[in-house]
């Protein structure tokens, strides 16, 4: 089976590079083809990278608390760019202050994110989810089901 391609990056005016490197390493070790666009990445850079590389997943990190503003509209832009069905995951310190995680999770899911991870999540958890989500897509495709909604 061909390698699954992922686009990885840190969104917005965020320069946290260490977690990005760790995720790059962990995901590559787990057998994914990682296209790492690094820090200070704009929404357009995520989408352009996904278009050229035919990526199946966009993994967005945000560590500096402005994630909600930076991520707003990403799904809509993907739809405009013709890759509306792509999986989008997000994780990090997405919001500031002590907010109820369930509420944060719901807000990001409403924005079109498929998986939302709270601070302190280990890479393995996301890797397991990726494998599960991608396997489900592969089998849907092989049954002729096309992309999932």
């Amino acid at each position, binding site marked *: 089976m061909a390698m699954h391609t992922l686009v990885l990056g840190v969104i917005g005016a965020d320069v946290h590079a260490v977690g990005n490197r760790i995720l790059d390493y962990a995901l590559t070790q787990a057998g994914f083809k990682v296209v790492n666009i690094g820090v*200070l990445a704009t929404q357009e850079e995520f989408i352009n990278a996904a278009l050229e590389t*035919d990526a199946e997943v966009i993994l967005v990190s945000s560590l500096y608390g402005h994630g909600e503003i930076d991520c707003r509209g990403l799904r809509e832009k993907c739809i405009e760019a013709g890759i509306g069905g792509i999986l989008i995951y997000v994780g990090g310190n997405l919001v500031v202050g002590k907010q109820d995680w369930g509420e944060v999770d719901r807000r990001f899911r409403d924005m079109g994110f498929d998986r939302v991870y709270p601070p302190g999540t280990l890479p393995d958890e996301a890797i397991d989810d990726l494998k599960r989500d991608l396997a489900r897509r592969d089998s849907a495709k092989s049954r002729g089901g096309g992309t999932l909604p």
Partner: protein
Amino acid sequence: MNTALLIDFGSTFTKVTAVDLEAKTVRTSQAPTTVATDITEGLQSALSGLGEGSSWRGLIENAVYRSACSSAAGGLRMVAIGLVRDLTVEAARQAALGAGARILDVYAHELTAGDIARIYSQRPDIILLAGGTDGGNREVILHNARMLATYPGKVPVVVAGNRVVAGDVAAILARKHSDVNITENVMPELNQINVEPAREAIRRVFMARIVEGKGLARAQDLVGTIVMPTPAAVLKAARLLSVGWENEAGLGDLMVIDVGGATTDVHSIGKGEPTMAGVMLKGLPEPFAKRTVEGDLGVRVSAASLWEAAGERRIRKNLDLMGTVGIGISPADRISKLAERTDFLPETEEDLAIDAVMAATAVELATERHAGTVEVVYTPFGATYVQHGKDLTGCRTLVGTGGVLVRQTEAARILAKALFDTGNPTVLKPKNPEFYLDRDYILAGMGLLAEHDPLTALQITKKYLKPLREGEI
């Protein structure tokens, strides 16, 4: 005497360079290009201009090495196609420019029937088709190949996209086009550019096919194959001058600026990595040997568009450069007249002054567009600096070429417009380079000679570029 004969069929002048390979000396001559009638007429008069009593035919026959480049009859006209504008489209554009092409247009995403009609009307000599990283997107380049198979005529195509489908793409194109060339992807991985193989492929097509269609075939009977477009020869000479050859050292990072009547070309050789600490490089990396062409900046055909691009204020500011001579010149009138008289050669001091103003403005704008930029990004942790494109601040050598600069007595003052401007510090132009002038028009010729004898080409280039001293600035 071991002579090499190097010929540049330019759009206006045919320039010949005869090199004595032992004494390492050069004689040059030029005559108007005669592409409309018989290209060899202009060549003959240029060769006769070399003098010394020998017949032009004798000069050709006695040369141990003959080579030619051309930008006559519109140069190498190309269209570049990719997927995303900032990624494979840009990489394809860089590849074509470095091959010495004139870019007619670039196309992103899926081509439409309207796009095909438009490309056809632009009459490209070669189409460069890219799109997708290796193993990446394949649908768009396949779609574009199918669309190009509906092209109303035949045109050579260079395929430099996703390796995985390159064979399929070529097979689709071959249904219509007889000259389809597969080469390496211009962007094998995201944000990695690989322009050299595509440049080579373009050059092979140029040598094999393009020259015939341009009335240059007769010239080939005399001088052998026309091996590359002129800008590619200049880029080759610039690269050799920068990196050196074996034990003969080069001059390090450098820029070559060619101000012409229709365009201003800028070449830079160097990695252009950030020179300041803490600056982050973003965006597509640029080629080590990078060429840009500004089609709206020139001193004759493009005089009107230069005026528009620069604006009156900037032109007036540069007019001050010329000191007292400039007073009383109405640049708007003069420039609109020059745009009509494209073969005008300056005669009076005032003519030269207005040419100098326009050339200075062209140098200023063309280098601004060529050089990278640094921008401040404010993050919650303070300011961060992000660089796009090449940092040329450390560039050590600046070479001016082209008839406009050569005719000027104060070329250094014009070239100084390529320098870093403290009033515009986000543009990473050279800070403290040495200035040189290609007074004898040898650069293209030395790019040709570099294919045969790089060491001599380098030594001659170093010997014949005239240093412009500080006192002349």
